[in-house]
């Protein structure tokens, strides 16, 4: 067991986020939607900041997006379960939902700003548990 293998996501202990992590483990990226305003919120929230309603529903985020920007990461001191180098990208989610930062499974030479991507949920082990992590791939 490596030095950092005990890590789990910083937010994993938040009760309201349990569905988020459970859904990821089941292979789906989800977020909260306010049924009163009809607005999807990214990232998930405990209540709607617009109308303060707190009975939010979980909805699936369409597993696609476009590449806003990226960087190839080389610093192994801060790489926990992934081998460097890997590409980190900022992905614009559909319908103006927001932006997601994650690994892009591609070579830097194959990347261009604005290219369409699909999102895939990969499984990774840490802290003796399986975690779902959303990654991106060229479409």
């Amino acid at each position, binding site marked *: 067991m490596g*030095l950092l293998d*005990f*890590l*789990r*996501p*910083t*937010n*994993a*202990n938040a009760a309201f*986020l349990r569905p*988020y992590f459970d859904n990821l483990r089941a292979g789906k990226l989800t977020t909260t939607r306010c049924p009163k305003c009809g607005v999807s*919120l*990214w*990232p*998930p929230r405990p209540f709607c900041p617009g109308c303060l309603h707190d009975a939010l529903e979980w909805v699936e985020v369409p597993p696609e997006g476009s590449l*806003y*920007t*990226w*960087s*190839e*990461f*080389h*610093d192994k*001191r*801060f*790489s*926990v*379960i*992934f081998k460097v180098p*890997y590409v*980190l*990208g*900022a992905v*614009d*989610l559909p319908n*103006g*939902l*927001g*932006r*997601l*930062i*994650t*690994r892009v499974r591609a070579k*830097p030479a194959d990347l261009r*700003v604005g290219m369409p991507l699909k999102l895939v949920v990969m499984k*990774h082990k*840490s*802290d003796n548990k399986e*975690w779902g*992590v*959303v*990654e991106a791939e060229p479409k």
Partner: protein
Amino acid sequence: MNKVAVAGVGVPLPCGVHKGRTENEMAALAVRAALQDAGLAMADLEGLYAPPPFTPREPLLGLNLQMLAMELRLQPKRMAEVAMGGCSGALAIKFAAQEIALGNLETAVVVAAAREKSVTDEFVLLAMKHRLLPETGMPWVEPLTHQPFLLYSVIPLYAMSARRYMHEFGARPEHFAMAAVRNRRHARRNPDAAFRDPITVEEVLKSRTLSEPITLLQCCAQMDGCAALVLTTETRARKLKKTPVFLRSIGEAHDNSSFVPVDGVAGTVASFVAAKRAAAEAFKRGGLAPKDVDVTDVYAPFAPQELIIPEDLGLLPRGGMVSAIEQGLTDASGDIPINTDGGVTSRGHPWPVTPLYEFVNIVRQLRGEAPNQVSGARIGMVQAEGGMVNSSVVALLERER
């Protein structure tokens, strides 16, 4: 409202590694140096302000204002730590200045001390080794917008900002390297700077890649350091030995994102909206325009942001820094001098102290006593940031004609 002046500045130790000292000792030395510079006595200080300690209070103590007051034999009427990430030091100055402007205090000192380098070496690595850090994650807060296990460093976020700037304005990695080289050129003449040996664009580009296009020599240098500023009323400042430098205006803005715009995709990372709004507020309140500014210090955590932030401040049009850095326009001898003390990459970056270093440099510039003096500088600007530049403070300072 009283006009507020900077009466004294103190940097008693160069930015560097100070393993054999405590934060409180370094803070006390900085207060002493600022008092000597102002020609004031300890008993003149009515307010004591600081950014929060970098070091966790337990078990290492770190900067502690109540103990510092005891050690200085100071009985402050007012005392506070002011905290908002990296711009805390600038907000501590703003808070102290407001107390003076309101007439609650006549003279106050703002001080910062941090052993970011030594404490990281001595404590953080040890704590990680023995798993003393919380098991719920790394000390860096991981927003849900960032997928877990991938990103325990802020460097890739700034690198992605750099990539986007390259895409929008045709900048190349060489341009970022030129900013690091400019900072080093300035640091060569600054005795308070941590890194003073000359470097070239090639050396910067060939140094270790952390997150491309950012290489090691484009990074802020976490270091140990301390600094203090004595603020007072206009009336009192005019009776003191040093030329008073007045705080003309302060702007402040915060963008509700942690680098990633959360409610919509309109946000850009090739520009920082908080820096833009803070500058606009400072210029409006001060009745000045960017063209009036003679010298500027920016808090740009990595070399690519050395190009982006001056544009946000209005010193250049969008994308204008690409040719400006090629032409040396932001050198101390150029038309738009920036970071004449060496900036965070070469002067060094104990983050709680950085905004104070910036104010100290601009005050020295306006007094005519800076290491890379801009001839005739009369209006100066300081920009400090927090978070992922989603907090910004911009201050305009002036010397009378």
